[in-house]
């Protein structure tokens, strides 16, 4: 449980940190993701005894996965809370990840993309009329019509 909390915390912080370096410090998406992941990866490579072996092997992967989310353009998403939520969703996918795709390059990126796409639809349900509005928009998107309330 403790290990999972640490992983979720990593998943929450990583996209926010990457997005800040990307958009706030204007370092660009690739540098912000790669340099932060390099620092985390290097730390656990040099000090493998610093934490539990499960965390040592998983934190760098969760961090780099979260950093992919943080590479998002501010044109698409600029809300730090939603970024953190996307990171948590990513972590959820990562923990339940399929054994079939283990070791496939880009699987972490795919999980990040799915998490981000899921998080991008959250504002639909959190506008003025909250759920009702969200359901109406969903109906409109799916069937092309939305009944007036």
């Amino acid at each position, binding site marked *: 449980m403790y290990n999972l909390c640490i992983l979720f915390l990593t998943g929450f912080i990583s*996209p926010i940190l990457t997005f800040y370096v990307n958009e706030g410090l204007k*370092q*660009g*998406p*690739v*540098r912000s*993701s*790669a*340099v932060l*992941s*390099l620092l*985390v*990866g*290097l730390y656990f*490579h040099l000090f493998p005894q610093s934490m539990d072996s499960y965390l040592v092997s998983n934190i*760098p*992967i969760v*961090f*780099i996965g979260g950093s*992919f*989310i*943080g*590479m*998002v*353009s501010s*044109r*698409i998403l600029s809300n730090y809370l939603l970024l953190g939520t996307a990171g948590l*969703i990513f972590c*959820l*996918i990562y923990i*339940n*990840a*399929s*054994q*079939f*795709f*283990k*070791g*496939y*390059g*880009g*699987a*972490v*990126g*795919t*999980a*990040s*993309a*799915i*998490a*981000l*796409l*899921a*998080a*991008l*639809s*959250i504002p*639909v349900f959190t506008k003025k009329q909250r759920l009702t509005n969200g359901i109406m928009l*969903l109906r409109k*998107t799916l069937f092309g019509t939305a009944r007036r309330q």
Partner: protein
Amino acid sequence: MKQPNAAFVQARYQPEQYHEQARDYFQHLIRIFAENLENMNRHQAVRTIFIFFLLLIQVIFISQIFKEHTHSLGTVAILAVLSILVLITHLRGKIHHKDHAYEHILVAVWIPVGALITFYLNHFLKLGPVLSAALLGSAASFIPNLRKHSHYLQQLPAAFYCGAFIGMSSSGVAPNFLFVATASIFTALLLIISKNLFAGVGGKLGTLAFAGVVITSFIFFLVSSYV
């Protein structure tokens, strides 16, 4: 004021010739319009096919998790909600540019380079997938600094980083350089056609890399089965 020569005017203004020219001109315009329409349809088809392909990759990814967690009701419920949320974002379609554009081949050509370097760092220098990809990505992110005004150099970090994700594959999936090179070529093709699609979406490069690796695995599986 100098008057125009009457003979010259008569020679220039010939109604039949003028009408012929106008007709040719309009025919030319219609031909250009038809060609553009054809191109537009082709671009639209490429665009639609790519979006469906990427959606399919994501569906395969999620359904595989479903398949392995059918015993856990909580996980199945979470994945169902997740699938609906992803579908809503896809259907809203606000993540794509309206105009379709192709990435230049000289940008995509760096994907295999990034993949092979990362694969070497990962498996031969035993740095591990995260450190190898991050190392290459960090180095590549400084390439635009070589010539700050070069538009071409500014596009290279993303191509290198995309290649790095392929090189992160484990030796069980990617046993040799041939596999990595093949997966890189497929990923490069996907990158070329998806310049304005999913633009600015985090994880796009990783998804392309994943698609490349999955296609290559499938091809290698078919080849090993029949040869």
